[in-house]
């Protein structure tokens, strides 16, 4: 039977993949053709979704972006054979956008049936865990240290060092908490991974548990991701049934259990200590540090908090060795960057490339510029707390240090592109409004100052004493910067200040006109 693939991914379905799948089934039936429809994960080439693939002798052949109207036509042309059609893209692996990427973490995404353990294992899954089960905890930790892997959630803290702290903190009970709160606008890599390759997260968490001596794990998943929830639930059940989770992992006699906890629509709960409070069933108030979560985390016990992508990357490190992973990247940014091209972008989606590519190359060449066809004006990198970058900064290489040098951050890899219709005063206003809405409320500058900031921007917009109100706004940024317990209040000045610094005309324009 011919295999036909149509992603079941959130974005693919948001652009009509379910309707295409239904139409393919209907047309095949009409023509009396026997096909097997597999709802694979997405390859992350979202600009080509719904991406329909058929298995030919030479490999998988893709058509996209598919529409329901084109399906009957496609069957008339000879589908599921690799027929000619205006939407034919050729061999999937030859699509330049995908071919130029270095996929390590997203190596299986879009190729496999997300819930098929067989698929997962055939393409290298559980190799890392198998190796880890033959190693001592200290050896696993050492491999992660050597790989140079840094946290992909935003703060870029060296993962191996965090694990070493938990390993060396004696306790009867330790926990792993996978941070799947992915709140940053412009990011979807965690979601894509959980929907396309959920076993990888399970494997990464299990390796982590073996490394630090934990027997319980939580996935803190944001409530905005119902499909990821569904996929993860099933994947956990599959893994349990195959003894890859539970009381005797792979026959090793070691135990590890995973529970999913669903968030409740609070951005701040992505901050690790707020997440721990939320996991404990409380309001997501940020905790003072120290104590570090690695020493006193969930329910007061040593806890590894890692982002989904960090835990996923560990499977590659353990499967292929620390040196293999380390060989990608530049300087102190090792491995691959999972950039997410979002907003006003022609070829948007997930781009996994070694650190060090320039922002301009990523947006203009890989991303193909704006979808509106207008010039790019500003690029916000690193989520809502990230800097807005003007053209003079786009030649910066995408690595942690180079971005820090220009007063910016890579964060979780979100890259939001704006064309020249953007009003940067509105963007600055939104950053402050977002801070006011999502503040946990513990610090006055963040809770009250942000509201005051919105008022100031409104005054500036109304030409009300622009110069002095801009000065007051700068003072306020200074207060947020120095008087905030966490990066929510502490980094809100980044988008605000960069908007003013690089796009001053949007703030004074009102006064001039």
């Amino acid at each position: 039977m011919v295999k036909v693939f149509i992603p079941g991914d959130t974005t693919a379905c948001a652009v009509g993949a379910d309707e295409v799948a239904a139409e393919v089934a209907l047309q095949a039936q009409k023509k009396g053709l026997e096909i097997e429809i597999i709802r694979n994960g997405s390859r992350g080439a979202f600009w080509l979704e719904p991406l329909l693939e058929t298995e030919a002798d030479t490999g998988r052949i893709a058509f996209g972006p598919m529409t329901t109207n084109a399906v009957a036509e496609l069957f008339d042309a000879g589908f599921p054979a690799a027929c000619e059609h205006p939407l034919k893209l050729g061999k999937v692996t030859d699509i330049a956008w995908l071919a130029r990427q270095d996929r390590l973490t997203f190596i299986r995404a879009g190729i496999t049936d997300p819930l098929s353990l067989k698929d997962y294992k055939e393409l290298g899954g559980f190799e890392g865990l198998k190796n880890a089960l033959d190693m001592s905890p200290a050896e696993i930790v050492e491999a992660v240290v050597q790989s140079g892997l840094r946290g992909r959630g935003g703060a870029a803290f060296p993962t191996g060092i965090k694990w070493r702290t938990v390993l060396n903190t004696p306790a009867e009970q330790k926990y792993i908490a996978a941070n799947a709160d992915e709140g940053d606008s412009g990011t979807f890599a965690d979601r894509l991974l959980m929907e396309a390759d959920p076993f990888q997260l399970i494997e990464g968490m299990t390796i982590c548990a073996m490394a630090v001596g934990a027997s319980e794990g939580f996935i803190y998943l944001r409530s905005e991701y119902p499909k990821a929830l569904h996929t993860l639930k099933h994947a956990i059940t599959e893994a349990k049934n195959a003894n890859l989770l539970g009381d005797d992992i792979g026959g090793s006699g070691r135990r590890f259990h995973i529970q999913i906890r669903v968030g409740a629509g609070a951005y701040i709960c992505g901050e690790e200590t707020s997440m721990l409070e939320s996991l404990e069933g409380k309001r997501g108030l940020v905790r003072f540090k120290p104590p570090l979560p690695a020493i006193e985390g969930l329910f007061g016990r040593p806890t590894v908090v890692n982002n989904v992508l960090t835990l996923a990357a560990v499977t590659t490190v353990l499967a292929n060795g620390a040196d293999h992973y380390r060989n990608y990247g530049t300087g102190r940014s090792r491995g691959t960057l999972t950039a997410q091209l979002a907003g006003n972008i022609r070829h948007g989606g997930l781009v996994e490339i070694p650190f060090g590519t320039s922002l301009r190359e990523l947006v203009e060449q890989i991303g193909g510029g704006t979808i509106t066809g207008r010039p790019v004006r500003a690029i916000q990198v690193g989520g809502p707390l990230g800097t807005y970058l003007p053209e003079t900064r786009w030649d910066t290489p995408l690595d942690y240090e180079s971005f820090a040098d220009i007063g910016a951050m890579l964060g979780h890899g979100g890259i939001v592109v704006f064309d020249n219709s953007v009003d940067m005063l509105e963007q600055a206003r939104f950053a402050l409004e977002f801070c006011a809405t999502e503040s946990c409320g513990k610090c006055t500058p963040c809770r009250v100052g942000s509201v005051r900031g919105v008022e100031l921007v409104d005054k500036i917009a109304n030409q009300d004493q622009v110069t002095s109100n801009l000065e007051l706004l700068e003072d306020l940024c200074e207060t947020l910067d120095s008087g905030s317990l966490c990066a929510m209040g502490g980094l809100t000045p980044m988008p605000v200040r960069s908007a003013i610094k690089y796009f001053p005309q949007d703030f004074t324009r009102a006064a001039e006109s």
Partner: protein
Amino acid sequence: MSTSANNPLAIVSSAVQEHQNSPGGLLPLLHEIQAQLGYIPKDCVASIAAGMGLSRAEVHGVISFYHDFHDQPRGQTTIHLCRAEACQAMGARELEKHVKTRLGIDYGGTTADGRFSLEPVYCLGNCACSPSIRMGDDVFARVDAHRFDELLDNS
């Protein structure tokens, strides 16, 4: 349907029993109650608190902290409109105006016929195909005013 299935207190007490012994079980419990009743009635707070060994203030504090939890009845379908940057870059501000006018409600509101509630959301993870909205559990991409009307008419 049995009477207990319609009785909020019965639903709450069986949900409490289920989550009572799970450490940090308050959030899963509240999600469960909201999934079944559509909201978390104020007069259930006392029994939630008693069942979970918490004070009423603590339970109320949690319900009010999280945007997802509501203590008032909601429309049949909640429409979440993404207000975040990636969607802004693709016209979410205009869409927002249209949606509010078309539904005749602001954020937090419910249409007079009880069919829809409107909520803001900050990212649905669909940022390469913005603007995005979520209706119930379905996410829709590249939604402009015309597409929104179409979705509403077909729902």
